[in-house]
């Protein structure tokens, strides 16, 4: 581990100033991802700026019924919040499907969406990786691609974003509130993460030194009927192979509206607008769900690699979406 300086600033503004002024500085949230990267040499900052105690750590109800979640709230506390559990079950479920109890206690709402890919080549400084070292090449292509993207990848990077919480946030039209060198702004959650394109080293739309201060969840009745379905290689403590966050409104056997996002398949949580579109007005049936999945997956491309690559993700995602919507619609049309 390379030695670094540590700063505990007095407030969020000082934190932002300190990081913005130093290209070699990073924020430290719960540290559950960053500290690993420090040990592995994946991150070698000169200055680590601690956020403990600086960020709002409560969940506030706004006048319009939205929930404002402080970036300092722990993943555990967010998952356990009665309002979240009742109004946004998909979010609570997504959080609880991630990591372990100990990690969720440490992990923050600000740090979670900014955790970096689990691509094994990214995490190993002895293998080339465009995300870690731009221009060095992508070791994953043609390598072990089981956990890699089938949507929105590029020839430069096929990594996926690992967060479960972020998938739910993307489906729920959340907004990210930030404080940056240029002041405050709000970004639609779905615009927070980028696709890799030719700059995979950039995960998000945030500027250097831009701090996430809160995430707003707008009130949405549809989210009360929502669920997160995570499919993984073991029963717990594993990242998603694919996951589906879905909310659905059904009336008289017809789907009125839907919110859908996929995890484990792209460099960003994947908001499935084409699937949503295909569902609106369709009968609540397996056929509609499959068609919705197919609408979204027309551009899906498997990544070939060791052990047969990841082509299985495409049928798996179709089947997982179908199962999730079937359960949500509450009737099994078998």
């Amino acid at each position, binding site marked *: 581990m390379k030695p670094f300086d540590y700063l505990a600033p007095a407030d969020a503004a000082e934190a932002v100033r300190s990081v913005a002024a130093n290209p070699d500085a990073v924020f430290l949230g719960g540290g559950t991802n960053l500290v690993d990267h420090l040990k592995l040499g994946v991150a070698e900052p000169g200055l680590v700026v601690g956020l403990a105690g600086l960020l709002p750590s409560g969940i506030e109800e706004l006048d319009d019924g939205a929930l404002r979640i402080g970036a300092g709230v722990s993943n555990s506390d967010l998952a356990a919040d009665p309002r979240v559990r009742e109004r946004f079950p998909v979010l609570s479920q997504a959080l609880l499907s991630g990591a372990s109890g100990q990690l969720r206690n440490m992990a923050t709402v600000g740090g979670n969406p900014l955790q970096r890919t689990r691509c*094994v080549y990214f995490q190993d400084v002895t293998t080339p990786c465009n995300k870690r070292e731009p221009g060095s090449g992508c070791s994953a292509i043609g390598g072990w691609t089981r956990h890699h993207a089938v949507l929105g990848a590029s020839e430069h990077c096929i990594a996926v974003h690992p967060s479960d919480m972020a998938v739910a946030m993307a489906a729920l039209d959340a907004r990210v509130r930030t404080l940056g060198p240029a002041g405050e702004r709000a970004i639609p959650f779905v615009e927070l993460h980028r696709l890799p394109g030719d700059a995979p080293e950039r995960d998000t739309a945030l500027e250097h030194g831009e701090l996430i201060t809160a995430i707003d969840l707008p009130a949405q009745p549809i989210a009360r009927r929502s669920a997160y379905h995570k499919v993984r290689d073991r029963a717990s403590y*594993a990242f998603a192979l694919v996951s589906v966050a879905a909310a659905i409104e059904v009336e008289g056997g017809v789907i009125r509206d839907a919110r859908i996002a996929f995890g484990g398949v792209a460099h960003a949580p994947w908001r499935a607008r084409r699937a949503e579109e295909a569902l609106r007005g369709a009968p609540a049936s397996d056929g509609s769900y499959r068609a919705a999945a197919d609408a979204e997956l027309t551009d899906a491309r498997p990544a070939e690699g060791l*052990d047969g690559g990841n082509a299985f993700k495409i049928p798996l995602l179709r089947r997982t979406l179908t199962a999730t919507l079937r359960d949500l619609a509450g009737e099994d049309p078998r």
Partner: protein
Amino acid sequence: MTFPSEPEAVGRDLPRRDGAVKVLGTATYAYETPLANAAYLHAVQATIARGRVTALDTAAAEALDGVVAVLTPGNAERLASTEDRELAVLQGEEVAFRGQVVALVVADSSEVARHGAALVRVEYAQQPHDAELRADREDLYAPESVNPDLPTDTSEGDVDAALAAAEVSVEETYTTAMYHNNPLEPHATAALWDPAGEGFLTLWDSTQGVHPTRTALASVFGLDEAQLRVVCPYVGGGFGSKGQPHVNVVLAAMAARAVPGRPVRLALTRQQMFSLTGYRTPTIQRCRLGADRDGTITAIAVDVVELTSRIKEFAEQSGVPARMMYASPNRSTTHRLAALDVPVPSWMRAPGECPGMFGPEVAMDELAERLGLDPVELRIRNEPAVEPGSGKPFSSRNLVGCLREGAVRFGWAERDPRPGVRRRGDWLVGTGVAASTYPVSRMPKSTATIRREGERYAVEIGAADLGTGTWTTLAQIAADALGVTVALVDVRIGDTDYPMASVAGGSSGMTTWGSAVVEAAGAFRAKYGSEPPDGAEASGSVQPADDRHAMHAFGAQFAEAHVHLDTGEVRVPRLLGVFAAGRIINPRTARSQFIGGMTMGLSMALHEQSVLDPRTGHVVNHDLAGYHITANADVGAIEAYWLAEDDPHVNAMGSKGIGEIGIVGTAAAVSNAVWHACGVRVRDLPITLDKVLHALEERPRH
């Protein structure tokens, strides 16, 4: 003196004597040995799989505040013996596998050592490497023998003719993955030369055998064994990977000599363990079975292809269990190896039996299916009267008893044999069975000393407790052999200052050390009678095993598997094993071994796989986030039972080894249950959802 036929202490489920200190965190593991002013070590590893180091720039590391020394092939001491090329570290520029140690940083703290290691710049002349195991390679070779020293090939009768004539046959290829032992405690060593130079070396090493480690290190450094002490009271698991010293021990000893008078500590990182501490070879097993219509097996053939490293051969004996499991007049087994540019493979829990009971036991299930015969019944029908091959009588063989008892306990009788027809909610449900076996082995050498100390008895032997129960079980054996209450017996193990003990490996510990303890107790009582004076002392050594009998433990494992109708996820909510393993010394520690082995077998069935990227020769999922082991949520009900087995031939206690048999057969039972659940034969481990998804795609959901 013989062992009592109705022992008092043996057979009781006494709690582990080391339990309290472990729970309290006061048990000292190797790395934690209190040593003042210790230096810390961190290894620099090769990033190519084959070639030569052409330049090593250590200047930046050496300039770092707190770095004491950087050892390289250029300045490291020349070892007395480089015969074991795995241990011949820093002796030359050649790189034989990715991850090989090319330099070692010695520093005042572990953080500085690690940072220094990252600053060492290494240049290489890279050569093309070859790290891909395939059964169709042209350079496969037959090793001279397979682990530990068994024949490479065997042949009886005419397998091809019998298969051609068989009314029913199975011919399939099965594969098991590369596995890493991954004990919780990493490989760790502390070392001190005192006095320095030619003086005396003490190693505190996490090892499965202090004496074998001492012997190996004495040879590598050209020392007299009297100049070396190895200490290891507690081990945080080894599963075979600490059965032989690995390079960490040599590095620690070298570094300690390089910083005279100063102790050093080295703990490998989890990632480093994936290239430096051994692993189980992947296997490709071609299995052929032929049978008559009534289920009498007429041919058994198992041909195994495995890998080894180019610098040191390890030939896992995966074809061996097929030599003695079932009766057949025609039988052949072969082992072929590919020598690759990969890290050195080694022992992992039940080498041979564990992978070698996957292919054949799934093949048995396939044979049962083709015969329309119950798989329990098929096994019972092919029970041999004597050990196939050797023709020796079994000292005891209760496979049939295990199968029958397990079938009753598991509720096998109600089983509908058809695959893919049971559904519970969103899950397809199935059950499967497989057999287990493990040989009873006794190491040729081990000695115990018993001494009267006041009112108490001290038993000393350099044995190891890997978390298995040795501290407790040796006390039980000694108590009964001496005819005293177990509370009066103190056990001292894990130190070469005690009499020589063999490695904790091959499930031989209790048989070997326990026998030595019984001999010592016999000598003690013969010498001192029932009123020994304070300080009275006698020793005894293990005697050669009975070679007129074939000696094996057996078992039967039953699994229930669920396959999710939509996602193909596989869960195993129930595992049940019944074992026949002689007299059980301590039901509490024995049960832990059985269910621990079964859990590891479940892990092998569903999760474990070291992904070796052939482009780099590198295991890319080299941490516990990437290398999945079964987590708590994956284990449902897990039950282990044993038959009361009276075997007078195995040893004085009547016990058989139990540390490994639990992992044998589990993966086959799970695969057989998955087939029964969803109709897909998964012949390649691990059984992941992508391997069953295609069948679900074709299946109407109702």
